[in-house]
């Protein structure tokens, strides 16, 4: 597996948590969210992955959305975190910290990687 493939699978696993974290900073529309994720080095998220993830979060009532007309061109749907979303984000953050610490510990404890294989 290429390293980019691995990074892609990490993003896939954490996308919804990342979206909650971004929306905790303020409302945003889809394309803005992908730009923000790219700028933060998390990855280029295609629209085809983004909107189904947003739909799942909205269905779970962790985020809510509102349409605003576009100045020119199509209108935009702005997403924002709900109270429930804020609680979910806190829970996600906690379990992410534990998970990341465990992975980090594993990686540093078995640091010597053998070339023999």
């Amino acid at each position, binding site marked *: 597996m290429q390293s980019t493939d691995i990074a892609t699978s990490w993003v896939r696993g954490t996308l919804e948590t990342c979206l909650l974290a971004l929306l905790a900073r303020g409302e945003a529309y889809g394309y803005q969210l992908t730009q923000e994720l790219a700028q933060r080095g998390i990855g280029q998220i295609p*629209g085809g992955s983004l*909107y189904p993830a947003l*739909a799942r979060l909205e269905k779970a009532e962790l985020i809510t959305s509102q349409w605003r007309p*576009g100045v020119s061109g*199509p209108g*935009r749907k702005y997403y924002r975190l709900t109270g429930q979303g804020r609680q979910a984000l806190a829970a996600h953050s906690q379990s992410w910290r534990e998970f990341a610490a465990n992975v980090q510990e594993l990686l540093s404890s078995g640091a010597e990687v053998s070339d023999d294989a």
Partner: protein
Amino acid sequence: MTPETWLDELAHELTVRHVGADDAMQAVVEAQAFLADSDGDPLVEFGSPGDYALRLATSLRPSAPPRSGRGAKTLVMADSLWKSFGKHHVLRDFSVVLRAGSVSVLIGANGAGKSTLMRILAGLLAPDSGTVWAECSVGYSPQAPSLNDYLTPVEHVRLFGTAAGMSQEVASRAGARLAECLGWDLAKESVCGSLSGGTRQKLNVVLAGLHTPEVILLDEPHQGLDYESSAMLWDLIAAWRDQGKHVLVASHIREAIVHADTVIEVPRLSKE
């Protein structure tokens, strides 16, 4: 493909997958805004319209209780099943529980015993030992449709419906509704001998679900179906799950597991 063509096809694909008009319109406008902002190629950003519509439909679908899990009602319980054909051991101490509101995908190599297990669960084949407990009605769609070449799909629906205790009118209406979910008008067809493999398969699925059983066993139901029909069948399976049924789908295609709440593997046993 131009963004306009792609968006038109997306709108069509969302409708085909029973996404509500409002959700579909919002999804199209949102994709349009995204493409305008990113100046990206729709096929790169979203994939094919059909593929994206399927993913969106899955995300938008309400997750209705009861969901599978320890709390959900047990519909079928098979305990310690053994089955051999001559020296060939097919099932050895195999147990499985099917609960309400769940989709299970049965995987295993060709010849591993998926169809044998299906037939035992359907009550059509006796295990050598072990028990099957089922406190519900079961619908079964065999791998090779057992249809009469000289009867039409409508006649099949009436025949199977009557056998299940339904009136012909009720059976006809239920059959037409299920066929419609698969994008098929069964009333238009002539005798089954003239149907394509995919259409026979659709009839097979319709007959399995006709009497609204609580457990539906589908043995390789996607065989012979084109891409669109196959997606519609997964949607129908998910709708059955949301109605509280258990749908067990045997498939040799590993991608089927993305639709599963539970994956059940039938191990291939060696001859002794």
